[in-house]
């Protein structure tokens, strides 16, 4: 069965390593913070200028001057640092953030990503997404494998305006985990009960299925 949003977040959380600095985008990526594996510690970077983002505040802790990149009120952990937007993106652009997790409208087999603009609809802007995909050491994209009409979001070539070029390394969808390499999507894992055929059918871009493809494990 296709994964729930929480399960996608749980699977992404398995990509975390001890000591990682991680930037989590809005939506499913935000949920990843709830599933950090036991025994490892990661530091969350919020691009408005906070390294060491903590949970939402209690009513007593609520402070309008303490927000995250989603403009939500947050807290800072012990050992956090707060800095300017220029410093924040120096970190991001300079490759100091180990992992960025973000959503997307489309990804293609060359690692291009489209996530910020659908022509004809209102243009909201890219925020920090273009800097994040250009700067982080590792980019994991989370999204549904296909849209609500069944159209694949894993394409030969993105059709929407790009956010970044050749930057996506890994994709976690509700159906599969895939690695982008050598101009193809390499299938690594299937969601429990999802067949390779279904993944193949919902992947418009070039899919490489090499050997046995295990089901994702959620311990």
């Amino acid at each position, binding site marked *: 069965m296709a994964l729930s949003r929480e399960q996608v977040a749980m699977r992404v959380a398995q990509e975390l390593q001890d000591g990682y600095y991680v930037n989590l985008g809005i939506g499913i990526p935000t949920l990843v913070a709830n599933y950090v594996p036991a025994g490892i510690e990661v530091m969350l970077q919020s691009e408005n200028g906070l390294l060491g983002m903590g949970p939402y505040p209690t009513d007593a802790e*609520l402070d309008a001057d303490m927000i995250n990149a*989603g*403009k939500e009120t947050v807290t800072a952990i012990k050992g956090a640092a707060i800095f300017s937007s220029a410093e924040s993106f120096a970190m991001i652009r300079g490759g100091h953030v180990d992992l960025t997790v973000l959503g997307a409208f489309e990804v293609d087999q060359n690692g291009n990503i489209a996530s910020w603009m659908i022509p004809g609809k209102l243009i909201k802007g890219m925020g920090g997404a273009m800097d994040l995909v250009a*700067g982080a050491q590792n980019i994991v994209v989370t999204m549904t494998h296909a849209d609500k009409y069944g159209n694949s979001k894993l394409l030969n070539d993105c059709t929407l305006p790009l956010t970044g070029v050749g930057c996506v390394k890994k994709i976690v969808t509700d159906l599969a985990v895939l690695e982008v390499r050598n101009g193809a999507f390499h299938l690594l894992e299937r969601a429990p009960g999802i067949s390779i055929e279904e993944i193949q059918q919902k992947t418009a871009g070039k899919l490489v299925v090499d050997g046995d493809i295990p089901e994702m494990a959620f311990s």
Partner: protein
Amino acid sequence: MAGFNKVVHSYEDAMAGLQDGMTVIAGGFGLCGIPEGLIAQIKKMGTTDLTVVSNNCGVDGFGLGILLEDRQIKKMVASYVGENALFEKQLLSGELEVELTPQGTLAEKMRAGGAGIPAFFTATGYGTPVAEGKETREINGRHYVLEPAITGDFAIIRAWKADRYGNLVFRHTSMNFNPMAATAGKITVVEVEEIVEPGELEPSQIHTPGIYVQRVIKGNFEKRIERRMVRQD
């Protein structure tokens, strides 16, 4: 001492000299760290044809959003403008021009403007609509876009504490774009929560040295919260 006493006592004095057609750089991220009173003063002055450079354009009825009501903004340079309906309406009707700029590039363009760097290369936006019409270059195997600096006739920012020299300290994440905006204005006006005596701010803990600041005014802030999230403990 007169030369370094940058404190002004009215919003009229704070924004004196702002004229139609000027470029105003504003600090703040969403509604956090915005110079509420200075924005209100611009609305009151009715200055028009402004180019406003700010990460966001406030929301309907608050922050920079209020400058849309009387169509004071001609062009907006921002990274994200998805928070207000009036913005959308004016954009679609062609009354408002927008130049979408990646957030990190926007921050760096302000810093560069203040730091005498007229242009810099960044990988951000390469191969995307942001790079259209811009010079690109391959350096050590990666592709980069040349981005020009931004400067403004005015910069309007918010800080927590200031002394009369214009030295500033920001509070928590309300820092955001304020330090860079401060450097990039020909006239930089700061609205603060508290004015302290020289020497009260530890020199090495000053976020913005006074050399970047021309005017300081004490404000009162509503500090509206855009997305109030709390946990139950």
